[in-house]
């Protein structure tokens, strides 16, 4: 049987490209491509996690003292916001699979709002650190370092800014991708037989969430 495209949505067949035999093959190929990209992302962030492990194993006391300078409450709130955005993104995929256009638009808007809130809180944290002089190694100018108590704390903040900064850049890229989905979903492009872009952007968004799931305890909590 041929699944009906819900009223008001563009037929899925208009997005079929000729080099795929079936819509399902096109969907599976797109997903495999996204997973291959996610593999490179895991390796990309993996390098920074190795840097974290090396510096921490060399100077565990520096990491313990410096982690206390981060605001655990803001980190925890951002974790909850990102988890919520993962829920709304997963729900957006569900809506697109069921042809629920209004639900899809709503879920994408909620995901975008959560992404901007996350960046806003990150901005508050960054500006606080900027004023305190808790910066990366070459720029670390806090009073604490003069006492020697937090000697080499700049090493910790180098790792902190590299990891959270790269993560924030990924959030920005995600915002762009989700905005593109929003535009296409309002144009009625997605239907039960064509939702690959929603699914693959969702996978990317969940990976960004996965990275934060490890960053939060490693940077904010352990100490």
């Amino acid at each position: 049987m041929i699944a009906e495209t819900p009223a008001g949505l563009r037929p899925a067949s208009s997005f079929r490209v000729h080099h795929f035999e079936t819509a399902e093959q096109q969907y599976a190929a797109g997903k495999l491509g996204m997973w291959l990209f996610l593999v490179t992302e895991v390796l990309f962030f993996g390098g920074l996690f190795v840097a974290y492990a090396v510096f921490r194993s060399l100077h565990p006391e520096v990491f313990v003292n410096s982690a206390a300078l981060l605001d655990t409450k803001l980190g925890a709130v951002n974790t909850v916001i990102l988890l919520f955005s993962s829920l709304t993104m997963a729900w957006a995929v569900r809506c697109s699979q069921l042809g629920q256009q209004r639900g899809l638009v709503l879920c994408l808007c909620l995901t975008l709002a959560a992404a901007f809130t996350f960046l806003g809180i990150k901005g508050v944290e960054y500006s606080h650190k900027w004023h305190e002089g808790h910066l990366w190694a070459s720029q670390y100018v806090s009073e604490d370092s003069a006492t020697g108590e937090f000697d080499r704390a700049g090493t910790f903040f180098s790792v902190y800014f590299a990891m959270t900064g790269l993560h924030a850049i990924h959030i920005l890229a995600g915002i762009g991708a989700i905005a593109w989905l929003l535009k296409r979903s309002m144009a009625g492009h997605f239907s039960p037989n064509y939702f690959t872009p929603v699914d693959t952007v969702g996978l990317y968004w969940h990976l960004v969430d996965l990275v934060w799931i490890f960053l939060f305890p490693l940077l904010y909590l352990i100490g």
Partner: protein
Amino acid sequence: MSDETVHAHVSSPAQLIGIFAALLALTGLTVWAATWPVGHLDVWIALSIAGVKATLVALYFMHLKYDNPTNGLLLIFSLAVVLLFLSVTLSDVRQLVPEVEAAGPVRVPIRGAESQ
């Protein structure tokens, strides 16, 4: 099956909300666990909780439980490579650091200074 039909698992609202609730509970647990007086074990406790959270996200939000196993294998291979990178680098650092520190501070010549 029609050429135009795509079959994929659709998550139920109960499942999505259940996973979200579990992720929130585990976030609370990891914040609480950070206050336990367990010394250096805290890294392993935090990583274990994060690992459970990551598995939930990968299996349910990323649909790996219902997906073509190739996609899940790709993720597992990439994590295995990161683990290999991590373990070899850490063992190398641990072996070499005592030798480097025994050699004392390194004096780096300023470029151009030696010709003056």
